[in-house]
């Protein structure tokens, strides 16, 4: 049973924008969807959970471990949180081939894994995601679906305790989108890893929204999202 409890607050003031991020929710679901239009603060929320941005106030507890508690001065680094992050454009390292990208989190120290790095886990993911034929290629040479699989393999190989996904299907065309959705759903059930997915696409909500958290203008709209059916979300979407 996963337990995730989040309370975040940060005031962003830039010359262009004055934005308050104020998010709080609790969940015991394995699949949580943060749903809302562009600019609602979904990505910022995800980055805050991963420890990539600093907050004014906040508390994050995952499976009984406090990752962040500003009042007590606890703020684990992204490295120590063991949270995987699938970036919207995948952020595959362009100077490393597929094998090296997947191995990145396995290798400690100051140097990158070699081009022919060998490890049972790498071969497992290359096979599982049908990436063997492209293992020596660079990210620039991959298709959208392949990029996403490489990014997923890279994120999952260090055995994270939570998987964050930032608009995972937005860069894919319609046909591929449906297939990758199914692939991710199967993978999630097989690995039994909890995930938080952000999207503005109602179809993603239908597939992954065991619990839906609605965000608008940086504020959580409904805390008890469990009572909202995914079909009702469509009327709220403004993609």
């Amino acid at each position: 049973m996963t337990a995730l409890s989040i309370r975040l607050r940060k005031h962003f003031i830039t010359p262009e924008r004055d934005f308050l991020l104020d998010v709080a929710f609790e969940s015991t679901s394995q699949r949580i969807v943060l749903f809302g239009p562009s600019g609602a603060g979904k990505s910022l929320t995800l980055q805050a959970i991963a420890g990539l941005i600093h907050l004014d106030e906040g508390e994050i507890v995952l499976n009984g471990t406090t990752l962040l508690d500003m009042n007590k001065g606890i703020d684990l680094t992204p490295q120590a949180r063991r949270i995987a992050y699938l970036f919207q454009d995948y952020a595959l390292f362009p100077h490393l081939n597929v094998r090296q990208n997947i191995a990145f989190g396995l290798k400690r120290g100051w140097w990158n894994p070699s081009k022919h790095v060998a490890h049972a886990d790498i071969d497992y993911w290359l096979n599982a995601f049908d990436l063997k034929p492209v293992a020596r290629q660079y990210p620039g040479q991959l298709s959208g679906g392949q990029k996403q699989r490489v990014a997923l393999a890279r994120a999952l190989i260090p055995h994270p305790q939570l998987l964050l996904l930032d608009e995972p299907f937005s860069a894919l065309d319609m046909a591929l989108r449906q297939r990758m959705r199914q692939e991710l759903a199967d993978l999630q059930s097989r690995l039994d890893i909890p995930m938080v997915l952000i999207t503005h696409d109602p179809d993603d909500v239908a597939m992954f929204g065991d619990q839906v958290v609605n965000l608008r203008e940086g504020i959580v709209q409904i805390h008890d999202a469990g009572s909202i059916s995914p079909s009702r979300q469509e009327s709220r979407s403004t993609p």
Partner: protein
Amino acid sequence: MDHAWIPLLLSLKVAGWATAIDVVLGVAVAFGLSRWRSSARELVDSLLTLPLVMPPTVLGYYLLVLLGRRGVIGAWLDKFDIQLVFTWQGAVIASAVVAFPLVLKSARTAFEAVDPQFERAARTLGVTETAVFFRVTLPLAARGILAGALLAFARALGEFGATLMIAGNLPGRTQTLSVAVYAAVQAGDDSTANVLVIVTSVTCVVILLAAGRLLPQRSMASVR
């Protein structure tokens, strides 16, 4: 005219050391400047870029004042029996100072062009901050840094004014190619001048060709 080799080798040695020093310092300072959130950032950048616009003889004079036996640094070094004036090591310092802004500018631009997303990705994969620099930031900025290093090497090889001020014109010891050309012309020794000029020109062409080969041809088209 086999003694044309002596100034050539000296020039290569001086330019090589100067470039090495500039790359280490330039990369460190450029990375610091690219991450430093302060209003003093551009001021520091401008100060460090000064050698690019100041006359080399003026720089040479400053160096002489600093590094000479009675200079602030020179007097201190003298205690350890280290003299830089009229030595090839002095020429290295002159060349390094003159060429430094070329590495700094290129490296800073390169670091600022690295998408922070890649560094964030590396952090979530559990890699330490130092490793993020060596495994992600530095490789992604490498092309810009290499370009800066080549410019610095070329500039150091052609250094004349500051070198002459601090290292002088001692044949076989501090007489680099560009200084040797000047000395030969001054002495009316046209045949030596001709050889030196041809050697210099050929060296420059060879370096340019080598630079073209050094740049990796790998498929890095997706580096944004």
